[in-house]
């Protein structure tokens, strides 16, 4: 039986939770909502994060971007390298998909208009 302390990042409350693992079954205590429970379970099996960064365009402008789903925490820097190596060509606005399936079913989308 393993016990792990996890601080939730889903909302500003930042609940401190305790995850107990018993034969592959996870129990979460200390969460104040279901999102916390889901986050805690994911955190001890496969931690994920929404990646927010910027991407450069060929025309010299910048777009603020994010992954529309959380990606694997261990992949964050590899994805940063991929994003920073890109120079997108075209006109983009908030909400556009810039790199589809950047990891599995997560897409990289624009969160701002071109700056």
């Amino acid at each position, binding site marked *: 039986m393993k016990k792990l302390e996890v601080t939730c990042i889903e*909302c500003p409350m930042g609940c401190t939770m305790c995850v107990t693992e018993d034969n592959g079954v996870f129990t979460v205590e200390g969460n104040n909502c279901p999102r916390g429970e889901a986050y805690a379970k994911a955190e001890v099996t496969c931690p994920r994060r929404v990646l927010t960064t910027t991407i450069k365009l060929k025309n010299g402008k910048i777009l603020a971007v994010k992954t529309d789903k959380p990606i694997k925490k261990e992949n964050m*820097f590899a994805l940063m390298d991929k994003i920073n190596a890109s120079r997108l060509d075209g006109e983009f606005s908030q909400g556009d998909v810039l790199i589809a399936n950047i990891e599995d079913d997560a897409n990289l989308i624009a969160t*701002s208009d071109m700056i």
Partner: protein
Amino acid sequence: MINYDLVIIGGGPAGLAAAIKAYDEGVKSILIIERENSLGGILNQCIHNGFGLTRFKESLTGPEYAGRFIKGVKERNIEYLLQTTVVNVTSDKLITAVNTEKGYFEIQAKAVILAMGCRERSKGAINVPGTRPAGIYSAGTAQKYVNMKGLMPGKKIVILGSGDIGLIMARRMTLEGAKVLAVCEIMPYSSGLKRNIEQCLNDFNIPLYLSHTITDIRGKDRVEGVTISEVDVATKKPIPGTEISFDCDTVLFSVGLIPENELTKGAGVQLYPRTKGAIVNERRETSVDGIFACGNVLQVHDLVDFVSEESEIAGKSAADYILNGKKDATYITVKEGENVGYVLPQKVDLNSQTTKIYFRVTKTLKNVEVSAKIGDEVVALKKKKVAVPGEMETMIILPNKIKNQNGEIVLSVKEL
């Protein structure tokens, strides 16, 4: 003379929400004046998520949150001027502004909403010893360089201040390939959100040195290193013998936000030292009739969702003032009691509807009772598990509790 019913100074989240609300309440002659080259304010450089959880039940990035309100302004065809700086506001609501197109010009308004936000406290303001090489930035400036100009301020970073801005930049710089060697915090606790300690520091094993400050910066033309020291918890003075040195090329200062109230002072509006913002009543009206304030220029907020909520109060009140004239009212003062750093509003109309008083505690307190009293009479009471200075709190005062009262409401927080 250019005339508008309502002029809003600042096109960030506060100004935008106030404009939309004023419009929806019946005022159509509105002008937003913004000094940057786009609407959105500070949110434009806050590319991280976590905004809008309360208001929209979604985790949005800064630009996405701002985008919702910019859309609202554009849909209503509310006028705005960009790259225009207001240089003066009078108590008669005469605004003087400057831009490259019109030069120096004046606008007469019936009502003004102040929504100028904050600037950052500087290294100079906190007297850090050492040389003055290049490579020293406020965290917000570094954020603007990285997120809006695509430029990296440096490679090996030490950050002073563990509030949310410092924490967010620790992560941002790390993601962009810099090495963040340390985040120092003079207090024995961080004022940032716990979620940010997790996702900005712990995720990247960035050490947090509580009760520490920077006591020396070295470097001739460029930062070469810093020394940090532990400080005495009570006096905040550095403790000799606790020095730790870091070789670094960049120092970021995240040491506080100061409401930008130069224009406010110029208009003769009374300021409240505890908030560094205007003294307001529950309608967010200042001491000058027809001048309202909202957002960070009024009180430094933690969550933009509450900026929007506050700004809607100001927008509605400004509309009411324009359409129905000045409101005659008798006010009761709200004051800080035990363990309360500031209260807002500082005046409440005795005949007002339900009022929300915003406040912050002066230190971390657990198992608390928050009480609002007029003399010995309790007008509102609530219990909370924990209260920290870094999180703005609220207290609801019901209308029947203050009608026919005189005296002042004292808000206190006590550990049980």
